[in-house]
């Protein structure tokens, strides 16, 4: 071998001052772990080709199989989806039902007990349960708090794994955890056959057969006065018009992220008559000639996710809907995904960050296409409106209000629950329908519209509860019609703090007024008498400058408590 170095054995000296650093045995950053890679490949095998918008579903697969998301599995998932690691990580850490565990970190306990600490459950003693459970939890159990689980009528509520139950006690939860009762009981809902037997899907088939044009149905919906019952109250027929104005492909998204604290009406209908909802959904899909329908269902309703998958399977088998037309997507613990554009982002497999408007989702929605977004209950009424006619629906309101309303009523009542009452009903009427106040409680105040709608005193108990009107003049709104009734045993300051903590937890973090505003508000509200001037400035800026309804409405409890319950906060 020719060895002309001309240096006669002199070992070349590297230039520069360095020399202390060690070279990399691998390329930069975290490397793929071959075992995790193989495991993820096997897990995803049935899902090929992988789709970007399915990221959250894949994360669920991993979380459900291993109980957490290890860094190794996340890296393998990123690699399989050809996504940046950061993109997978930011999605995984955004949703509270995912547990990311990095190298060297301890995996979460086998069983998670999530205790609801939203207002109705908090009033029913959630904090005591969390404390008592936490103090005595065995090693395989962890206890965390969670936001509203839609079980406010049976408060206090909690989840053991995926098993969401009401009327819990420390004893009950301990036994459930011991028995690993982590799967939900399926509700006894109306079957496909029974729904068909009572004439179900007739309206859908008629429309598909050309009985009416979409324009005619739009007129019917407008005449009926059907409005968006997720909380926005936008006329449903009008929405169809806007969506139809855009060119196809168009999509339908059903917002089943019933997260507004105090709301449980959608769960009620899904647990009892899911096919009426499904028929309504398919009517809406027909109405805008949707290329596909997506049902975004909150992760707190696992029984609903299961029953929908089962029943949609029957529709597919029965030829009512083509296979793969209806997609059921599972949320992962994020209240913000009830905001329609955040929900669309989540369906696309991203963090649930609300979008700027304009453009509206009717113009630029799912996958950038015109998208019709409806709440569960909104479409639930559609088959019946078509069957019975618009007047049947419209006439159920009182004093000029149109339609029936499904009020979720909870709090200090004898018989809380979903109350079907005329639009424009008052809280005093609803308390009556719920058997009156619970024993030993005197009506003091109420939330007219969940966490976001403000807090009113008993003296405002005769205000009609509907979109707009007198309620709006009081700086409140009815939203999803979640009514939480409070009594003389409750501190309005504590209630407001509870609600703001909820908003702080659930803020997506995107915009300053909401992200920082909620956090600062909680700190201010917890320390001594309220600095009303500063809170006033803050709440104005939050309401004026937040991107979405969460941040804009988050100050409502603060403002209304300062107006109506001064004595509780000074």
């Amino acid at each position: 071998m020719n060895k002309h170095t001309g240096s006669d054995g002199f070992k070349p000296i590297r230039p520069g001052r360095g020399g202390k650093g060690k070279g990399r045995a691998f390329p930069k950053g975290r490397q793929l772990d071959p075992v995790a890679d193989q495991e993820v490949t096997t897990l995803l095998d049935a899902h090929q080709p992988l789709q970007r918008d399915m990221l959250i579903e894949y994360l669920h697969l991993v979380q459900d199989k291993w109980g957490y998301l290890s860094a190794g599995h996340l890296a393998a998932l990123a690699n399989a989806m050809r996504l940046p690691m950061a993109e997978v990580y930011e999605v995984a850490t955004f949703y509270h039902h995912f547990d990311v565990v990095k190298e060297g970190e301890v995996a979460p306990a086998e069983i998670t007990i999530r205790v609801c600490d939203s207002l109705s459950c908090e009033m029913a003693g959630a904090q005591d349960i969390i404390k008592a459970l936490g103090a005595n939890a065995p090693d395989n159990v962890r206890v965390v708090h969670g936001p509203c689980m839609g079980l406010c009528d049976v408060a206090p509520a909690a989840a053991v794994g995926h098993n969401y139950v009401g009327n819990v006690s420390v004893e009950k939860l301990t036994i459930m955890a011991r028995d690993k009762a982590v799967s939900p009981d399926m509700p006894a809902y109306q079957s496909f056959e029974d729904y068909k037997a009572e004439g179900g899907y007739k309206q859908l088939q008629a429309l598909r057969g050309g009985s009416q044009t979409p324009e005619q149905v739009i007129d019917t919906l407008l005449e009926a006065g059907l409005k968006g019952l997720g909380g926005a109250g936008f006329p449903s027929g009008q929405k169809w018009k806007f969506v139809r104005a855009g060119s196809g492909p168009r999509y339908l998204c059903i917002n089943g992220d019933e997260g507004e604290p105090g709301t449980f009406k959608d769960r009620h209908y899904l647990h009892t008559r899911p096919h009426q909802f499904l028929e309504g959904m398919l009517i809406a899909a027909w109405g805008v000639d949707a290329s596909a329908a997506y049902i975004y269902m909150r992760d707190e309703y696992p029984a609903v996710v299961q029953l929908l998958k089962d029943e949609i399977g029957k529709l597919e088998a029965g030829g009512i809907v083509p296979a793969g037309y209806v997609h059921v997507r599972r949320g992962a613990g994020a209240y913000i995904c009830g905001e329609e554009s955040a929900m669309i982002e989540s369906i696309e497999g991203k963090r649930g960050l609300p979008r700027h408007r304009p453009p509206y989702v009717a113009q630029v929605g799912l996958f950038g296409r015109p998208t019709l977004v409806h709440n569960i209950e909104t479409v639930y009424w559609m088959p019946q409106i078509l069957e019975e006619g618009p007047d049947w629906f419209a006439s159920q309101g009182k004093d000029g209000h149109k339609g029936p309303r499904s009020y979720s009523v909870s709090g200090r009542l004898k018989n809380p629950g979903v109350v079907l009452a005329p639009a424009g009903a008052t809280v005093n009427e609803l308390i009556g329908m719920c058997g009156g106040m619970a024993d030993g409680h005197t009506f003091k105040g109420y939330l007219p519209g969940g966490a976001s709608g403000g807090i009113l005193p008993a003296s405002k108990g005769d205000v009609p509860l509907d979109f707009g009107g007198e309620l709006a003049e009081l700086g409140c709104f009815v939203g999803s019609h979640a009514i939480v009734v409070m009594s003389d045993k409750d501190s309005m300051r504590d209630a407001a703090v509870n609600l703001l903590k909820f908003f702080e937890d659930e803020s997506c973090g995107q915009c300053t007024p909401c992200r920082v505003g909620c956090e600062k508000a909680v700190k201010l509200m917890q320390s001594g008498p309220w600095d009303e001037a500063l809170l006033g400035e803050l709440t104005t800026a939050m309401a004026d400058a937040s991107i979405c309804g969460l941040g804009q409405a988050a100050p409502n409890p603060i403002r209304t408590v300062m107006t109506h319950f001064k004595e509780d906060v000074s």
Partner: protein
Amino acid sequence: MSGSTIKFTLDGREVEATDGETIWQVAKREGTTIPHLCWKDAPGYRADGNCRACMVEIEGERVLAASCVRAPSEGMVVNSQNERSSNARKMVIELLMADQPEREDAHDDQSSFLKWADAMDVDVSRFPRDTSPKPDISHPAMAVNLDACIHCNLCVRACREVQVNDVIGMAFRGPHEKVVFDFDDPMGASTCVACGECVQACPTGALMPATIVDEEGRGSRKADRQVDSICPYCGVGCQITYNIRKDEKTGQDHIAFVEGKGGPANENRLCVKGRFGFDYITSPERLTKPLIRKEGLPKGLNMDPADPLTHFREASWEEALDVAANGLKNIRDTKGPKALAGFGSAKCSNEEAYLFQKLVRVGFGSNNVDHCTRLCHASSVAALMETIGSGAVTAPFTAVRDSDVIVVIGANPTENHPVAATYFKQAAKRGAELIILDPRGTAMKRYASHMLQFKNGADVSLLNAMMNVIVEEGLYDEQYIQAHAEGFDKLKDHLADYSPEAMEAICGIAADEIRTVARKYAQANAAIIFWGMGVSQHTHGTDNARCLISLALMCGQTGRAGTGLHPLRGQNNVQGASDAGLIPMVFPDYSAVVDEKNLTKFEKLWDAKLDPEPGLTVVEIVHAIHDGAINGMYILGENPAMSDPDVNHARAALAKLDHLVVQDIFLTETAMFADVILPASAWPEKNGTVSNTNRQVQMGRKALEAPGEAREDWVITCDLANRLGLGWTYDSPADVFAEMKLAMPSLDNITWDRLITEDVVAYPCPAPDHPGEDIVFSDRFPTASGLGKMVPAKVLPPDETPDADYPFILSTGRQLEHWHTGAMTRRSFVLDAVNPEPVVQMNVADITKLGVKAGDRVRVTTRRGEVEIMVRQDDQVPVGAIFIPFAFVEAAANLLTNAALDPYGKIPEFKFCAAKVEPAGSEHKVAAE
């Protein structure tokens, strides 16, 4: 741009907005800069509307609107200065201020956040403070202090949308939301490539260049003065701004930090070298005095590059120049002009390249002048000159904005042309199909629609098979061929034997995949081809390039927006140095020396008798030294003792020279062989123009004085020339440029003064007020016939194929952090810290088979030499192949490489030779010879 306009009212005045303009942009145009934090008014940055510092009131709307994202509509009434909107904006600043570090501890006391806070009179916040995140100082280049982070997400957009390096994310939720690297890893442990775009974008100082933040985290972006220039590393030609400060103790100016500037090739973007790789100029190893070799010491790599005085003595400039010039003159006068040769540099300016070749041609009297283009794209240039009559690109890389299909073959732009890569990745994200053809998986693979990892060296078979499909399926552009090309019929016949099925086994790509990719390219509205040294550095490099050219011509994929042929040029000025004539066969502007017309022109221009015969190329010169035909050399800024193939052979040649003059800024491996070393200036220490891969001529400006007695290169070349009796009287680079314009029609309409005011003009430039042509040869090619020529290429094997004794294929090349032979980059703190040690990159399967593991040391041997080196597991390297970067003298890759040349381009086969890998320290197996 539709150009439609609407009218609306802004702060009481009727104003107009064009399509796509936001309220913020209109307000700025009208003279009001609305506060902004998350909105960066710079190319590539999407408005995100998250900080809410730019809120305005729109009459009739319930809530305020973020002016940075909101487009005005006809008749809208907007108030940006009323109490409601300014209160909201101020509250946003106050909320953010609550969690900021104290003023005196600011990470950047010049931050735009603090400037806006001052402008809005927000000094302190009335809100309680939240807990602060801890600093992350894990990265040598950047300090991460997220206590100042306002979650504006500019760094996320910088990383993911502008540079598409995809490291930064915004993780968690609500007040826990956090900027993260990968999985919330320390920045230094992440996949971060340290482009620093995030640092440039950060409005608070949460992300800062580490050099301008002290140990307590206090920092400042202040600069005493700023100088605009061009990055000295690769051929992309990024415009930069040096931020210069005077050191309080020494009074010396230094570059405190560098930022990207809005040049056409980079739009403010930079890579790790261009942002963090400038401290080499202050290395204590800089040469500051002329040096003359001490008598009686052997020439070799036998000294410490930090200590030349073991083998050299300091001399005055007068003495050193005399010795340097007299040595050259003696050889010229006793052994004839052809006994001398010169290697110029593609790292210096156009003017310096021009003077260098003129010195060799006029002062030495031969055409023995070459430079590193020989080692990078000589074959590409040979093929381009032969077929389309021009060695430069037909379209800038930014043309990908208009492409549907982007083919990248034999190039690894994320490492070698990182800023160009950002445009490719952006185009792929926008929806263009990115087709990568490369034996090695590259970082761009993630964005590719098709990644064809064909067998090393099998380019021609793959490309012929693609062309076969296009011909067989009639996908070629008949009309274009009729009007613009010749040789198609012959090529068609030739291609008949190259069906995808026949080539499948040779190139290792399934016939179906070849067909798919061929169809995509041929049927695209606009397709463009980029190639690098994976194509050129082969004994069949010219054939590879010919195939690419034929492919483009037969599909009519050149001469239009989004189409073209683009060899990605390596050195910052390899295009300009080649244009200026640092090539043995041509005078400036590729005027063949054998053409009498050219000879006459240049003899007249230079008032000298010139050699009518082409000179020798880089590798040929080395051979000629061994043969005794060349005895003296002048080498400016080149490092053949590291960069030549079979470098033992090249080093022996350097040692054999009777007289070697080296002009450089460091004691390079080549300078160790010198008789005289002339200390030169680094790029930031002189004025001059450079031409990038896009044919954009740009102005480099002097920012600092050269250290000690070091002089600007053009001055040294002039001094030598005058000692050789040439009587040069250039006063400045501007003078030289003026003469170049007489020699080079390509510089028509480009003047020094234009470049001073405009920073950049592309050539060809049709008019004094025209920015220069982006896309060329739409009508005709600069060939005799005006047509592009298709030249068939046969499949030829590499010069040295693997066998039982040497079973691996060795390829060499570069890495992101290290430039060429490492002379500059290994002396940069950040670049060295990130990549301190040579490695051989190998697939895990081969590592396992070898019985070693990643991080172990192995011995790599070829028929020419051996190195001991650490193994890096890199599964992008195919099984059976290894890759070694050539920047590291401790394990110089070129000890191993094969000097076999492409017959046309005379470029060595750096991308293919046979090698053996064994655990380090194991017994040498005797090769069965």
